[in-house]
């Protein structure tokens, strides 16, 4: 102890300390970066895998570098969210030319393959990312707030209950039942086809989650008034009034009339 204390002022002491410091730092750094390097390698692999899948499945339309062709848009900068939405809901690869890419089920790719293609497209340019589980957790959303925001921003295309509606020339805003929270979020941030993009400035991430909570509640809520007739509003109600209501009554009248004569 005293020996060490005595050599404390030895000219080499500083150098040894610096050495120890450097070694420790180096070892720690190596330990840390070796993990990162592994991650970097696997991300590159994923992008590579995604690129392969893309070349095989998507490039005929979107071009070899996703730069776009005459009949399909460029995917540079659309972000991982767009791919996850388009492929995850079965819209891509587009099954048939028409006014709008139809949803095809079952979805043809595994979750990993979709994530790989998403990573590839995300690597081409910055764009909206796939939301975290927390971002889209309906339990954390406010249903009442969601209903208000949905009505103001979405109902004009998707109908008050998210049953969908017609747009021009055969295009349509899809029905929203059965859509996963991730896909609802991604639809808002990427604005597929005729749908506008709702940035975080227009609708904050919390409010997006409120909308998800509202849509979930619409699906789960029992219909207090009985059969909901597809929630199409007064047109179906009118048909039922004529066919079931008046039809039944005229049937009764005919029956009563027949009984008397």
């Amino acid at each position: 102890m005293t020996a060490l204390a005595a050599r404390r002022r030895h000219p080499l002491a500083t150098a040894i300390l610096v050495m120890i410091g450097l070694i420790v730092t180096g070892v720690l750094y190596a330990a840390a970066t070796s993990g990162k390097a592994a991650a970097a390698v696997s991300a590159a692999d994923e992008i590579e895998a995604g690129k392969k899948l893309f070349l095989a499945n998507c490039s005929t339309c979107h071009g070899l570098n996703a730069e776009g062709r005459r009949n399909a848009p460029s995917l540079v900068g659309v972000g991982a969210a767009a791919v996850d939405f388009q492929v995850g809901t079965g819209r891509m690869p587009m099954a048939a030319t028409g006014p709008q890419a139809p949803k095809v089920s079952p979805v043809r790719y595994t979750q990993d393959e979709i994530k790989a293609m998403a990573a590839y497209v995300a690597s081409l340019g910055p764009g909206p990312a796939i939301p975290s589980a927390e971002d889209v957790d309906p339990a954390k959303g406010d249903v009442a707030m969601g209903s208000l925001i949905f009505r103001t921003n979405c109902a004009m295309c998707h109908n008050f209950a998210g049953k969908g509606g017609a747009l021009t020339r055969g295009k349509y805003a899809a029905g929203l039942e059965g859509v996963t929270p991730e896909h609802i979020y991604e639809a808002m941030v990427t604005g597929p086809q005729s749908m506008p993009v709702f940035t975080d400035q227009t609708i904050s991430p919390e409010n997006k989650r409120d909308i998800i909570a509202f849509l979930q509640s619409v699906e789960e809520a029992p219909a207090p008034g009985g059969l909901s007739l597809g929630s199409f509003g007064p047109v179906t109600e009118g048909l039922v009034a004529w066919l079931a209501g008046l039809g039944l009554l005229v049937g009764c009248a005919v029956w009563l009339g027949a009984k008397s004569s």
Partner: protein
Amino acid sequence: MTTTTTAKKAGSLANWTDERLGASKGVKFLARKIFPDHWSFMLGEVALYSFIILLLTGVFLSLFYIPSAGHTVYDGVYAPLVNQQVSEAYASTVGISFDVRGGLLMRQIHHWAALVFVAAMTVHMFRVFFTGAFRKPRELNWVIGCVLVLLGIVEGFLGYSLPDDLLSGTGIRIASSIILAIPVVGSYLSFFLFGGEFPGESFIPRIYTIHVLLLPAIFLALIGAHLVMLVIQKHTQYPGPGRTNTNVVGYPLFPVYTAKAGGFFFIVFGVITLLSALVTINPIWAYGGYDPSPVTAGSQPDWYMGFMDGAVRLMTGWGEFTAFGFTWSFNILIPALLIPGLMTIPLILYPWIEQWATGDRREHHLLDRPRNVPTRTALGAMGITFYILLWISGGNDIMATVLRLSINDITLTLRVLIFILPPVVYIVTKRICLGMQRKDRDKVLHGRETAVIVRTESGEYFEVHEPLDEYKRWNLVQHETHEPLAELPSEDANGVRRPGAGSGWKRRLSKFYFEQRVEPVTPAELAAAHHDHHGHEAIEATSAHH
């Protein structure tokens, strides 16, 4: 208590009333009133009973409904609305749905009954039209009926607007735009009705008064007049053996008809209640409260307003321009005001239009079989086709969504059909009627086809025709046809104008109505046909005009 004492008590009570009110005469008159029986005569009853249901449920709703556009914060049991800024009218209607015991059922009965009410009036009107029940002396009752249908549409629209939800607010918005489209006075009128800018706070209380007080009172008065006239003029009946223009064959009002009508009231009530218990109507909680900025896809009015909405949807944007410092919105004015006007005025005046064409001023208590008045039937079918096309156009977006079609294609197709289909239906219906009349002639002259084929000894085949019995035959020969006025000489032998011969227009209309006709078989023709059993084709050919 024994039966005899009860009867005595009842008898003395009746006596007591009779001595003071002299009611027995009226009761006797009404109780002995004869009503003919036919299912199509019960359509008006469906309308009447659904109106009664509307009155009963409407009173219930008015106990809880708050007619105010004042702002409030919803704090009821329906979670998706909690803390939202809504009107008191909306909050109270959601309250009726979820907080008042039986309230939702009452709302649904009230609304389904409203839809059935207008639908029943409509088909009742069709029955009256196609059977010619509007002819003298019943023209006034036809007019009352038309007014009732129109008021029913207005009453329904106002009721639909009361809850102040997103859909009904959108409807009022459209109504206000239509008012604004009226040239020159539109903006003033709109400000007058809304007490200022749309939507304002005056409109809800105002339409509430009209919906629960003014229009129901007018309804009661008009329905009362309608029924009193029915009793005074007696009910029409379908032609048949023993039924003439001067008698009524049927059952007395009491007890047979009262029992039947009472039973039918419960059937109507039952069917509407069943529908209301099983099927949602107007889920205003899902629409949310009214706010002028949002709209929902598939915004539609109730069915009875659908034709107007459809007309607006069919119209092109062409027609709006500014001149003399005003905006002229003919793109709205034509479909929303002109077309409904052009549809209702001829409808109301129809009894006189036809009277003009026939020159017939006699009373008619026997109904027409629709085939025997081909032009009227065809006109009616044409009108209904036009109406239904407008109605379909009102649902063009729902059709596009459900059938996965392009809304532009649907609208374009309907724009073409609205011009082509009604005349086609007119021609086809008229042909069918004339064909049916010819078939009737054939049946009378040659009997019913029995599908029994006989081979004679000489190897000839023919089908055995069985002659009709007298009762069936009567139904096929009792009617008369009108001749076009143009085919009658307009001047008599001395060159003096015959009264009733008519002007050029009148003659043209009459020709349009009656140029094509099939005369019923005359007794002489029938005798000839029986006489000359096999060579009958020749007779037929000479008697039918085409």
